[in-house]
């Protein structure tokens, strides 16, 4: 098990994944959540959406997960950015999170970031 290699999937919202964002970098390990808009069986590319923003997710490494449009999914993986700034998350794991409260999720993200910033400043 490559525990030293595997980076945690840092949770981000889809709206935050724009080229000027800190999270938008090649190979970044991210955790994303969104409603499934479409799924292509041949390419295994899923498109998820949240708050007007969308992201392509390459799900070819995922097994035992069935995709239903309008269901909510969460993926952890690495961001692959193509030359035209088109980003695809190469998912390592994924799960159906129907019933997730996205407001609570975003609130928890904000509080967690504040807490992590406090921890970092305390350690520095």
């Amino acid at each position, binding site marked *: *098990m*490559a*525990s030293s290699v*595997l*980076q*945690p*999937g*840092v*949770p981000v919202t889809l709206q935050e994944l724009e080229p000027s964002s800190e999270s938008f970098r090649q190979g970044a390990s991210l*955790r994303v959540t969104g409603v499934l808009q479409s799924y292509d069986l041949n390419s295994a590319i899923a498109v998820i959406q949240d708050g007007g923003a969308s992201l392509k997710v390459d799900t070819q490494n*995922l097994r*035992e*997960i069935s995709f239903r449009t309008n269901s*909510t999914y*969460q993926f*952890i993986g690495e961001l692959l950015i193509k030359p035209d700034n088109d980003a695809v998350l190469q998912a*390592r*794991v*994924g*799960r159906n*999170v*129907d*019933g*997730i*409260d996205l407001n*609570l*999720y975003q*609130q*928890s993200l904000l*509080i*967690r970031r504040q*807490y*992590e910033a406090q*921890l970092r400043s305390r*350690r520095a």
Partner: protein
Amino acid sequence: MDSLHLVHVKLLAADLLSLASRHTSPPSFARCGRTVTRAEIVGVVVSRDRREKFLRFLVDDGTGCVPCVLWLNHHYLNATSSSSRAPDSDPTAEMALRMSEVVSLGTLLRVRGRIVLYRGAIQIAVRDVLLEKDPNVEDQAELGEEKIWATALSASKVLCNASAAASRSINAYVQK
């Protein structure tokens, strides 16, 4: 003994993995000046490695990946310690096996266990594993952990201030 000694303390992975190790036997760990020996984390299984005697897996909560080990060697231990009980009827072994089946890639788990050092790195020697079906549990757990530690930090500050005030009073009394 510290009151947190036997408690499974709720921690974020980043906190757990940065605990300061104390040179005791068995090793103990410090967080905000308190001794922590057991931990509880909530996260997604991102790696799984099943061997004959144990299951190793990684739990990712977004702040870090925590290595966990679930021992499945009860049959071997029982074979040497007790010949009267059939290995298949050992409830501990059965429970460990059942828990190992819950651990699969992409599932959200609550893991509790002892904090141990393995090759210099912190990991959890799993006591129990709970499959979390509510997708909001992780967010609620994070909010709870942050609130608990914010309270603990302010409490430790109050204690430090109280202790400093007490030692100042003692010094003043002794000097009289």
